[in-house]
């Protein structure tokens, strides 16, 4: 027991020593103090003789050596980065100016776009990216993102004010105009919407105005500019938003950029806390919801410290944009490389590389084959029914069938499909199966009515040949009808082939066949050329098989007729 006071003294001594050695464990610095010290140290280093001439200079020190910082900004992104002559403006541009002012150096802007911003940073031609760049896990491996994020965007669906669209439930079966490569396309596809693809976001507002697109999806930051145009704002509104993605400034992922990154982290914290970002956003008329929420966060005591930018409770995570790869993605990539190395052709098979794409692809093939089989069966069925009715001697049976045939022949294929889909959706809630079913009925009716007409004409010739005495009670006899079917074999076969060829158009009403599936895949993956070439090969092969099968059917029918 006498040893206990000695032990207590020893423990107190160890604790006091630890606190003296690691003062930050007990006391957190403010971000302002940490930033001031960082800047002071870097300035001191920059002013030391020969420092600025050293190779591999620390990038923060170099900023002070050169008395400039080189932000990479966009020049054609309204409200965020634009340039008219020598005048640059926008939220990103003003943030860059505020950063430079805080460091006490001049901003020297460089033009970047979505494709060049990361390579220019890697080539050390800019110091920091400030160019509407979303922070996702894929980009984390390329650049060092500054935390906290300086803005956040989301994808919004925009459409005519009169259109009652409020959420995902209202977009099933509708066409939405999107840009290729937009990360949120996969999410839109998963809600049964059809996509119309465009290369550039800049065309979307015009496509909405010209009513080519009823709905368009793009970043809210992009549409902000158009919503300040009175004409646009009167006609269109935001329906709903999704896929929020934080925007990050970014520096090079090298050790020499660590202190610059740290300085920008601290400045970003301070700018949020003091409402600097918010003020710049208001001045540039961009959305401020995110910045208002962030200001509250960075004023919280646990976040307003020099360690706040690494505190998971304060900073936002990067968007997880990585799609789950298939088990055979590696082998597919090897095949692509092998083909490219030998042929020089940029060969890409995106449908085999990620699970969502693979799943869409498999379903697309199965649905296409169901559609083809269904369209063939429906064509035959409607041909028999309409052929029989048109051959009837009863006026009340014959003329409605003839009138239906004329109407079906007069309706363009797309319109017939849309009518079938509209009626189906009025009866059943929208689903892929309903879309496929509607397409089968529409294709069957269109082609079956023509084939039915051919059967009726054959029936007429048979009756003429036989002196018009066949059949009883106005209904053609089974035997005579069978012969009429055999006689019109060529026409029936031709419309069966037509039905098979017409199945891809079912994608227009949202049937998830292969064309629809591959359009969805290419909206979020690369390899459009290869993908659509494979699609063409698939459908030509399917039609060739159908032609072969139909030729067999025709031979059988003709043989039957000859035997009769």
């Amino acid at each position, binding site marked *: 027991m006498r040893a206990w006071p000695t032990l207590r003294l020893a423990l107190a001594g160890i604790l006091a020593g630890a606190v003296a050695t690691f003062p930050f464990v007990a006391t957190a610095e403010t971000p302002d103090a940490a930033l001031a010290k960082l800047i002071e140290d870097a300035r001191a280093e920059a002013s030391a003789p020969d420092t600025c001439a050293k190779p591999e200079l620390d990038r923060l020190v170099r900023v002070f050596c050169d008395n400039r910082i080189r932000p990479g900004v966009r020049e054609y992104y309204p409200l965020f980065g634009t340039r008219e002559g020598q005048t640059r403006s926008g939220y990103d541009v003003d943030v860059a100016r505020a950063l430079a002012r805080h460091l006490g150096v001049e901003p020297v802007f460089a033009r970047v776009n979505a494709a060049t911003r990361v390579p220019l940073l890697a080539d050390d031609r800019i110091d920091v990216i400030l160019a509407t760049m979303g922070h996702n896990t894929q980009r984390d491996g390329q650049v060092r993102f500054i935390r906290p994020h300086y803005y956040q965007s989301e994808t919004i669906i925009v459409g005519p004010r009169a259109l009652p669209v409020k959420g995902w439930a209202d977009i099933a079966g509708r066409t939405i105009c999107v840009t290729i490569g937009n990360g949120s396309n996969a999410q839109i596809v998963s809600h049964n919407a059809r996509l119309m693809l465009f290369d550039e976001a800049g065309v979307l507002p015009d496509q909405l105005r010209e009513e*080519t697109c009823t709905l368009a999806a793009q970043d809210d930051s992009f549409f902000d500019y158009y919503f300040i145009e009175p004409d646009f704002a009167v006609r269109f509104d935001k329906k709903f938003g999704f896929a929020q993605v934080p925007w990050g400034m970014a520096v090079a992922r090298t050790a020499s950029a660590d202190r610059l990154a740290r300085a920008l982290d601290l400045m970003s914290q301070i700018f949020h806390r003091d409402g600097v970002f918010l003020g710049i956003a208001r001045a540039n008329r961009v959305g401020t919801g995110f910045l208002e929420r962030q200001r509250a966060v960075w004023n919280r005591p646990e976040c307003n410290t020099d360690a706040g930018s690494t505190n998971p409770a304060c900073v936002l995570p990067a968007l997880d944009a990585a799609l789950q790869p298939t088990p055979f993605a590696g082998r597919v990539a090897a095949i692509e490389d092998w083909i490219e190395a030998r042929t020089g052709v940029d060969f890409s098979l995106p449908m085999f590389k990620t699970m969502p794409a693979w799943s869409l692809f498999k379903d697309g093939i199965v649905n296409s084959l169901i559609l083809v089989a269904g369209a063939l069966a429906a064509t035959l069925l409607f041909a028999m029914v309409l052929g029989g009715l048109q051959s009837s001697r009863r006026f009340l049976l014959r003329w409605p069938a003839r009138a239906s045939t004329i109407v079906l022949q*007069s309706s363009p294929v*797309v319109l017939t499909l849309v009518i079938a889909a509209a009626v189906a959706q009025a009866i059943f809630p929208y689903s892929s199966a309903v879309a496929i079913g509607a397409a089968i009925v529409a294709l069957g009716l269109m082609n079956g009515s023509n084939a039915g007409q051919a059967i009726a004409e054959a029936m007429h010739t048979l009756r003429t040949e036989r002196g018009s005495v066949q059949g009883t009670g106005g209904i053609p006899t089974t035997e005579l009808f069978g012969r009429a079917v055999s006689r019109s074999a060529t026409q029936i076969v031709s419309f069966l082939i037509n039905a098979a060829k017409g199945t891809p*158009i079912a994608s*227009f009403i949202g049937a998830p066949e292969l064309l629809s599936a591959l359009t969805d895949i290419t909206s979020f993956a690369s390899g459009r050329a290869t993908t659509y070439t494979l699609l063409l090969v698939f459908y*030509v092969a399917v039609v*060739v098989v159908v032609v072969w099968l139909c030729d067999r059917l025709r031979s059988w029918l003709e043989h039957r007729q000859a035997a009769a």
Partner: protein
Amino acid sequence: MMGLHIPSDFFRDLLEGMVVNFEIAAIALLIGLAFGGLLALGRLGGGAVGAFATTLIGLMRAAPTFVVMFFLLNIIPRDATLFGVGVSPSPLMIVALSLVPYSASYVADNGAESLKQLRAGSPLGALQFLPNVTRAFFVLVMSSSAGAAIGVTEGIAVILREAVLLPALGDKLVLFAIGILFFGATLQAGFALMRLLQRHLGRLAMRDQAIP
């Protein structure tokens, strides 16, 4: 349905859209005539060229128009140039080109038959090519509605953009019926023209036979 309101400029837009349908069909038929004519000559020539032409015609017959349209849309770069001149086709041109496999194979089939008739000494039989081409033209007009899927403002696209704002099925069906009426009248007029042409050719044939 009682409250169906069709904007005053709808019918003007619809007619303008249908002009686009005719434009697409005319382009597709012209290219089809040139390409299909060559294929017909090639097929009749026999040998390796004939076999190649026959295979190509078969493949073109099997190619679904809608898939060809998306294939062309995605395979041709937007900034494609030839000898420094931009050759990237417009969406309208893409729809027309997607109809070329159909029109060319149709022209090749009928053209070969006409050439056979001509060689057999029946110029009037060969002239049956004209009503057949007229029929193909009107089939192309109807098929050009596929352009609505890639943002071409043709007749059906005009109807669909109006229909999407109508909540009631009844109203939509009225609008669709108007579309069928307009396209149907065009088609039936086309077929009437074709019958007139056939009758005229028939009369010519009778006159030929009457001359000793």
